Structure formats: structure tokens, C-alpha cells
């Protein structure tokens, strides 16, 4: 497989930025070397696909709208009826999902080269993300493990809540650099660290 290159390029500048003198409100990090795969069930095969994903990833995914789980570098969440984002560091993720999800049960699409995964962590993460996405980031509306499909400036993003103050964003690779810069502008007032 081709060596993956970051889409962020020269926009990725490690260190402290914005109003960092007042403290670090959030930390931004590009999650590299991931496999990102979308699995879609047919209407009547959702339970079978959920079971297959659990078997491959070891993560038990509740069959509820937007529900998901994450553990270490592995993540699964639903973002539409019968549609799941599956993320892991294993380069054979697609292959393993393909052998677990036959065409009779659903379809498997590898998005690895089409998405950039950004982790946003810190006490001001809800505040900063609320500037970009018109959804409720509070924990009662957006619980840990759950995923969302939504927009920033009319551009799709998938978001998963990892813990109280941590979110993973999956943005289109071709928009990732400008999104990264926008995220930096949004985070400047609270101070942010890139690592």
C-alpha cells in the first residue's frame, strides 16, 4: 500500500498557539496511520452487521441511533440507519470487515485515503466545536462513544465523542487543510497546542 501522507502539510505546526499564555484550552492532534472503513447494512441485516463489526473490532456497538464505542485507537459508531464508521490502526481492517460482511449482509467501503482524522481534546473542546457545528455538544445530548454526521460551512464531518472532553473529527481530506486552519482560528481565544 502507498505510504499515507498527511493532508495538513505546512499548516500543521506543532507547539502552542493563540492565547496560550492564558493556558491550553484544547489540544489538536492528527490521528495518523488509521484505517477508516464505512460499513452499510441492508435494511433487514442491521443486527447481523452490528454483530460482524463487533466480532472484527472487539467493540460492542449498541443498535441505537448514533451509538458507538471506542477503545484505544479503535472506534465504531453509527451515523445513519444501518451505516457505521469503523476505525482502527490495523491495515487489514478493510479485509477483515469484507470477510465478515458478505454482500448478502451489506457493503464495505474503504475511506482511509479520503478522510483526515483530527482529535480535539481539552476543557474547551465543546466550546470551540460549537463555533463550527450547529449541534449540541453537551454530554447529555452527545454521550461518550456516540457519533454524529453533520456540517461545518456546508461540508460534511463525522464526529465521535471519545470522552468528556475529547472528540474525533473525520473531515474530507481535500478540505482538511482549510478545516485545520479554521479550527485553529476558532481555538485561538482559548489557547491551543498542536501535537
Amino acid at each position, binding site marked *: 500500500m502507498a505510504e499515507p501522507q498527511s493532508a495538513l502539510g505546512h499548516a500543521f505546526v506543532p507547539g502552542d498557539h493563540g492565547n496560550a499564555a492564558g493556558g491550553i484550552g484544547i489540544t489538536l492532534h492528527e490521528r495518523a496511520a488509521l484505517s477508516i472503513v464505512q460499513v452499510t447494512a441492508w435494511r433487514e441485516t442491521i443486527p447481523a452487521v452490528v454483530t460482524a463489526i463487533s466480532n472484527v473490532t472487539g467493540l460492542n456497538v449498541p443498535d441505537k441511533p448514533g451509538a458507538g464505542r471506542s477503545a484505544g485507537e479503535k472506534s465504531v459508531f453509527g451515523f445513519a440507519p444501518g451505516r457505521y464508521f469503523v476505525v482502527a490502526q490495523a491495515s487489514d481492517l478493510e479485509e477483515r470487515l469484507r470477510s465478515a460482511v458478505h454482500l448478502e449482509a451489506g457493503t464495505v467501503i474503504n475511506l482511509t485515503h479520503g478522510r483526515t482524522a483530527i482529535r480535539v481534546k481539552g476543557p474547551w473542546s465543546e466550546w470551540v466545536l460549537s463555533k463550527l457545528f450547529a449541534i449540541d455538544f453537551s454530554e447529555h445530548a452527545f454521550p461518550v462513544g456516540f457519533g454524529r*454526521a*453533520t456540517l461545518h460551512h*456546508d461540508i460534511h464531518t463525522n464526529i465521535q465523542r471519545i470522552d468528556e472532553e475529547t472528540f474525533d473529527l473525520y473531515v474530507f481530506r481535500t478540505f482538511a487543510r482549510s478545516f485545520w486552519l479554521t479550527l485553529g482560528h476558532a481555538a485561538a481565544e482559548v489557547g491551543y497546542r498542536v501535537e
Partner: protein
Amino acid sequence: MIIKCPYCGPRDVIEFTYQGDATRQRPDPASSDQIAWNAYVYDRANPMGSHREFWLHSGGCRQHLIVTRDMATHVISSVGFARDTTGTAKSGDRP
């Protein structure tokens, strides 16, 4: 205006695409009744009040929805998946 998607929950209207009047009945595709086809394509009642309409949650789960909305007040009285409520063909089904 906020539409409460049955999958995604309440979302701003900016995430949705209007897909038209959901009360229309498509004539039999084999029919060549020009008056019926003309009515299907062009005639709209445009009521001031409750209206059934298709919306696509294009900025979220990408499902087609049927929304019942008051055209005068924008108050939404119901939202459901279009595939659960229309016709005989189920959009999520395999061909």
C-alpha cells in the same frame, strides 16, 4: 427552523434539502394521460396550513424524510422516514 430528524435528532434547517410536495401521486408509468402527468409535474395546492413534504437530511444521515409542516407558521407536527410511509417500494430494500 429546526427539523427533528428521527435518526440524528434536532438539526438546523441548513442541513436539509427540500424535496417537494409529498402528497403527489405519480400516475401509472405506463399511462400516457397527459392531463394526469401535467397535474403530477406542475399542479400544487400550496395550502396555507398543514403540508406533507419531502426533506432530505443531506447534511446528516442522508435519509429522505416526510415532514408535516404548517406553511404559515413553520410549526412541524411530525417527521418520519419516507421509506416507512410511502408507496410499496421500500428504498432501503435490495432490488
